[in-house]
């Protein structure tokens, strides 16, 4: 008899075990159906309106509705009275908050969960009860009035809605309108669907590394630029190399007050070349984020028309920078300063020549007043260091840099700041201010200024 009873129990046990497995499968299947009824917008979860209800009295009101309707579940099972009483204590102490999320395409609630305060912002929070994932059932539990109050947020809450701003580089066109260094990317192609060749028109007004910041340089360089990305990147700094070719045009100098008696003029047509790239990694693969640039301007034809110099009818003296070379090496992302950005450090040498010239409109001829000087002695050399922080992405992008330079021949130096701030990578401004130090007025060239302030608004349209 005992054996028979034991056999019966074993049979009942296995039957029950099998039945439980079948039932749990059915429950799981029902749950899948329930969760699949809505149009799935899981890809937008982080962009949907979401918030935390902090109002302790309102939380009690909601909690009580759930208790009255016996709507709390854990793992789809009703909860025990003991557990409710235990969690009610947490409600008294204000330790339980409510996380709410709205649907993407309308105003209904799609997620509603009680959770302990310490679980907020945790990657996989432990909810106090099973979350509600259906606003219509929630409405039934809470009633229309409270449900609408939750939706309309007429109480104390913390907004967690993500507003997503980031730098995204589009390769269709890119208009960077900045008076000091504009660039218009208007054509692109690829050779293997992963890389990009971008063709741009660029402008360049002055160069602070040779102490001729925009506005104070009366020439504007305009040209064409090819930029190559070996891999398409969302960060425009991650280009592989770029080559720029351009020429110069005379530019007016707004906002700089009284010009010097013997100004710096454009004295001819020049060729401008710049090559830059992340080339150090070809020496050693670990040497990444180095930006090496070499650029030069060379004047190859002298201006001879009176109109090129303004309304002078008699002989006049002026200075001109016909040629310069600049070489700079910059290390980006040297170390991270959290939300402030990444630290970068660069340095280099800039060598402009200065010619003291005289123009005679009568003979349409330019003569060199420093004719006895050798070509090499007309060059002066600047050594400079440029460091600061750069932040890309986020709502605000910025470059905050300090530039310190020293003129070896003149025995004077200059220092200043370059501030470029962009909002959502669309609107912004560029301000640069420099001052000189150690200037010997007797030796200081008459065309040079003591301090420089240049700025420009920035508008960037990128698709």
């Amino acid at each position, binding site marked *: 008899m005992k054996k028979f009873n034991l056999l019966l129990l074993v049979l009942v046990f296995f039957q029950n075990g099998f039945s439980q497995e079948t039932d749990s499968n059915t429950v799981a299947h*029902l749950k899948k*159906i329930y969760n699949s009824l809505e149009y799935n917008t899981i890809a937008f979860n982080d962009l949907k309106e979401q918030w935390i209800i902090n109002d302790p009295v309102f939380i009690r009101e909601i909690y009580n509705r759930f208790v009255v309707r016996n709507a709390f579940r854990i793992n789809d099972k009703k909860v025990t009275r003991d557990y409710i009483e235990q969690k009610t204590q947490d409600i008294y102490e204000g330790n339980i908050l409510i996380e709410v999320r709205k649907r993407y395409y309308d105003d*209904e609630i799609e997620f509603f969960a009680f959770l302990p305060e310490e679980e907020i912002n945790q990657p996989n929070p432990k909810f106090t009860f099973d979350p509600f994932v259906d606003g219509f059932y929630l409405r039934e539990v809470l009633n229309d009035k409270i449900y609408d109050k939750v939706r309309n947020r007429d109480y104390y809450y913390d907004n967690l809605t993500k507003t997503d701003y980031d730098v995204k580089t589009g390769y269709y066109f890119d*208009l960077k309108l900045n008076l000091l260094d504009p660039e218009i990317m208007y054509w692109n192609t690829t050779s293997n669907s992963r890389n990009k060749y971008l063709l741009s028109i660029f402008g360049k007004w002055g160069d602070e590394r040779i102490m001729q910041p925009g506005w104070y340089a009366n020439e504007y360089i305009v040209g064409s630029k090819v930029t190559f990305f070996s891999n398409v990147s969302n960060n425009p700094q991650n280009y592989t190399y770029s080559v720029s070719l351009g020429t110069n045009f005379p530019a007016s100098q*707004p906002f700089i007050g009284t010009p010097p008696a013997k100004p710096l003029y454009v004295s001819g047509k020049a060729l401008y070349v710049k090559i830059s790239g992340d080339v150090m990694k070809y020496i050693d693969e670990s040497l990444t984020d180095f930006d090496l640039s070499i650029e030069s301007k060379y004047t190859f034809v002298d201006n001879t028309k009176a109109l090129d110099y303004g309304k002078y009818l008699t002989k006049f003296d002026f200075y001109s920078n016909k040629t310069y070379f600049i070489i700079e090496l910059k290390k980006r992302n040297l170390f991270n300063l959290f939300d402030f950005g990444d630290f970068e450090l660069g340095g280099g040498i800039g060598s402009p020549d200065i010619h003291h010239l005289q123009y005679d409109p009568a003979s349409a001829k330019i003569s060199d007043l420093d004719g006895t000087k050798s070509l090499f002695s007309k060059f002066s050399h600047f050594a400079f260091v440029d460091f600061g922080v750069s932040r890309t992405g986020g709502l605000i992008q910025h470059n905050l840099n300090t530039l310190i330079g020293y003129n070896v021949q003149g025995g004077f130096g200059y220092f200043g700041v370059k501030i470029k701030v962009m909002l959502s990578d669309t609107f912004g401004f560029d301000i640069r201010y420099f001052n000189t130090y150690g200037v010997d007025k007797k030796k200081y060239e008459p065309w040079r200024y003591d301090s420089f302030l240049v700025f420009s608004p920035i508008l960037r349209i990128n*698709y």
Partner: protein
Amino acid sequence: MRLKYFAFCLINLILYSVVADAQTYDDFYRKIDLKLKKDSSYLNLHYVDFTGPIALPSSVTSLPRKDDEPFSFKVNETTTYRFVFLMDAVGVDSLELLYIEQRVDKSAAEGGFFGGGGGGPQTDITRDFIFKDMYDLKLNHFDQYSALFNKVTDYIKKNEDAPPEKLLRINPDTEIKTSLGISSRDNTDYLNFMRTNHLHWYPKPKIVAKAKRGAALEEVKTSFRLDASFSQISFSHEFMDFAMGGASVEYGFTEKVINLLPYQGTPFTAAFRTLINISDKKSDLNKALMIDVKLMGRLKLNTAKMMSSLPFVAADKPKLNMGTSGGFDVQITRPFSLPFLNIYLNAGGPAFSSPDVTVPKGADKEAYFSFSQAEATMSFYWNTSDKMTSRFRMDVGAGYYDIWKGTYSGNSKTTSQKELIQDNFYPVINFYFNFISDNSEFYGCKVRFFDSQASLTSWLKLVEIGGGHIIRFEGTYISAPIARKLRAWEAKDGGAIVQLRYRYGF
């Protein structure tokens, strides 16, 4: 004894688990039925309708219901049975029948005294076989469920060309959001802009029939089109259309390059414009290479006297003479994948004699002339969203004009001295914004920066009358020079013009 006690506990546990599972089932049944009943927008479900006698196995003519009498299909022509089901859901392997809705067409059955068909709903809808019944059918009467399942899947297979209808009422396809808006890769933005702003007519497709699968497009045919304001007018008629495009004419008092208001320059412009579409299909304008060419002739005209009697112009009298000249204005859509290109050139001979506007200089006079103007720009278009309610365009390029000074002794009308005083290129930026609500233009503006001056042109739609008549209020303001001195030939303090613009057939 121990064994009996153990058996008692075990049986209790089994009974508890059965009750608990039943509660869980009921929970889900209730939630699902509630959602199916209440959610009117987000349900990603499909349905098929069977009207009239349904060919079903005899086993399913009557279906058991969990908490009610069995459900029977009615066999008549006015009753439709809607089978609602879930398909292609993540984690749900096969199609899942959810409920059956009975829809009785009352308009056919109840004629009424006046023939029926009055106001109000004409269909009685009842949901007699809910999810709870359907899922119970699947669990406990699988043969019957299977018969219904096969009925639906057979219908879907037989109608592969017409996938089952959806209950989804939100339209994610029209609410696509991107992080920065969109810029079309074809002529869409260009055509949208031109149709709203251009002085000349652009072909416009019109949806003539909404088929289930897409819409047929047909070009709008109007007999003539007119755009007229106080400063310029354009006109075209359908007889001027030709296979690859169309033509139109234009007259006006405007200047494109130099910062001058209408009438502030001194030319009268007449232009002949042709639009040429080069594409495989005439109707496929979005992919076509479009060349919009305007050939212009300008006549010297003394508008200085006219300006003082024009109440809608608030500006100083012109000081610049613009001679008789000819030129062209070309706009090309993305040749070789380049941006949209705009090239403008106007050139005339050095006609210094008998200037309309002179400036006294002691006993003598001086006159300023511009004989040549040019502008080349690239255009870029973008929208804030795919709804294209806020549309933007930016032109970036360079402009050129010359300024000559002629000196006249005493009352002489021939110059004693000529001098080229300005011969420069300047960067030019035009920024445009259009606001289009419900596909109807409402507001537009243009800001232009050229040669240290800004000009703002803005329009607002005042009236739209059926049949294609639109009246806009439009104004243009040109600023004084910024960050440079006023030149001898320039008017002080800029100026402004306000005008009404009438468009028909656009």
